[in-house]
């Protein structure tokens, strides 16, 4: 892999960019692999990367039915933070945040991780109690955060409306300075390039249509391009997890729902942080291109259509206009939807299954993007050792039977 740098850019410019190396190969699948990762989104690619990098397993294929990073990786609002409520979740997300902090250098690919901070607003007394509880828990877990006043919020985001006369006035917020955003495509491409360089076969436009088992153990996958053998199959197919699980006769406690997002036209820098509000229901940041990137709540019904209902978007924009009355004259440029796997406790499943050699990483709901590096890291460890990584143990699928749920609805609430 040729290293990217300002110097390589300059050198290639001299030759009219005619000599750039391919970012990854387009290999023909082998007959079998040690591990097949089903799903070439951010999480799947990160899993393959860490399997190769950390665990030295390089005989891996990532099988993607469309193009790499084309699912939720390409459709989310790119918010990154780790200020979750419960120890189990916040520790997992903070591992992820720590990996984000060195990811551009790790991958030699600028994922444009921008630590511009995240505000989670509180609009009523219970919101503020929950914020205090969460921030205190985060602090004692070694995760940065503080509770800030409306005046401080106004300093961080000057266009925000902190009037006491609002319908739901802003009473305060949690502030995580290390949070921020990243460039979503770059994450997938960076992991893909890194994994490919370590020998991982990235196989696009190939859909897994079946999971072949023998004596209760996985032996490979059927695909639109034929059977490919594998000792282990790791499924990371957000949005379609139940469908893939059904191929192996496994049931999951997830439901697939549309999650919508939208962007404005690009405007000059006017919002230098990420603002999220559970109570009025919306979240917003500004991309490096200038678009206001806005997220909505999850639609109420199951759907695989990558689109949702318009009233959800209306409600979200109302919330944004409440928080930022000046944005009322800005215009929506584009809206879209993704499919998220929602779990009953708003926490993911990173788990072995009843089928030997079959692993699932799913159920991230609205919060998957920020977890990409950490999710890949602990899932790779779980797959490599056939034993849950310590930070993944609590996210075992068995928790739905024992009742040991990790209810993050409050912290995951509106998403992202």
């Amino acid at each position, binding site marked *: 892999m040729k290293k990217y740098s300002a110097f390589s850019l300059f050198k290639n410019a001299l030759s009219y960019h005619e000599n750039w190396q391919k970012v990854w190969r387009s290999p023909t699948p082998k007959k079998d692999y040690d591990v097949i990762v089903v799903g070439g989104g951010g999480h799947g690619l990160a899993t393959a990367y860490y399997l190769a990098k950390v665990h030295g397993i390089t005989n891996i294929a990532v099988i993607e039915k469309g193009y790499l990073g084309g699912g939720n990786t390409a459709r989310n609002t790119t918010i990154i933070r780790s200020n979750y409520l419960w120890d189990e979740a916040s520790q997992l997300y903070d591992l992820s945040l720590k990996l984000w902090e060195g990811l551009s250098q790790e991958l030699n690919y600028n994922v444009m991780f921008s630590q511009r901070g995240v505000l989670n607003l509180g609009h009523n007394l219970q919101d503020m109690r929950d914020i205090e509880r969460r921030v205190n828990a985060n602090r004692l877990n070694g995760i940065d955060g503080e509770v800030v006043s409306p005046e401080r919020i106004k300093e961080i985001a000057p266009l925000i409306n902190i009037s006491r006369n609002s319908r739901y006035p802003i009473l305060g917020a949690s502030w995580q300075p290390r949070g921020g955003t990243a460039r979503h495509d770059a994450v997938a491409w960076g992991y893909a390039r890194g994994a490919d360089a370590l020998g991982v076969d990235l196989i696009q436009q190939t859909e897994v249509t079946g999971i072949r088992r023998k004596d209760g153990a996985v032996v490979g996958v059927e695909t639109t391009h034929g059977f490919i053998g594998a000792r282990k199959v790791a499924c990371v197919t957000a949005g379609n997890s*139940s469908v893939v699980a059904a191929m192996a006769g496994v049931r999951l406690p997830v439901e697939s729902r549309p999650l919508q997002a939208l962007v404005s036209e690009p405007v000059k820098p006017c919002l230098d942080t990420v603002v999220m509000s559970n109570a009025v229901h919306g979240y917003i940041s500004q991309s490096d291109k200038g678009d206001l990137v806005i997220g909505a709540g999850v639609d109420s019904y199951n759907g*695989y259509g990558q689109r949702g209902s*318009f009233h959800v978007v209306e409600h979200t924009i109302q919330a944004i206009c409440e928080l930022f009355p000046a944005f009322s004259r800005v215009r929506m440029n584009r809206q879209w939807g993704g499919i998220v796997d929602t779990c009953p406790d708003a926490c993911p499943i990173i788990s072995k299954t009843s089928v030997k050699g079959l692993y699932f990483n799913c159920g991230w709901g609205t919060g998957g993007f920020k977890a990409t590096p950490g999710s890949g890291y602990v899932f790779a460890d779980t797959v490599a050792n056939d034993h849950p990584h310590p930070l993944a143990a609590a996210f075992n699928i068995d928790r739905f039977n024992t009742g040991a749920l990790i209810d993050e609805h409050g912290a995951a609430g509106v998403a992202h």
Partner: protein
Amino acid sequence: MLLIHCPHCQEYRDEEEFSYGGEAHIVRPLEPEALSDEEWGDYLFFRTNSRGIHHEMWYHLVGCRRYFNATRNTVTYEILETYKTGTQPTITGANL
């Protein structure tokens, strides 16, 4: 924005009047105490989540306040039929 035919109001009404009630035809076990944690967990949380034909409950919240069922394609979002609670769908994944 779905347009849903309420079998009680006998009219197509806008999605905004309804709330989604989850997968239909999940019957509460008659003797919960006789079940293992796994069996009870399956009833509580595990769902078919089908891609394609899906039978689901809707509540006509701002309307007749009745629950009813719909057969909906979760990919195209077409609603193939709605039918009253306690009755069976005429369209299923098997017969389509």
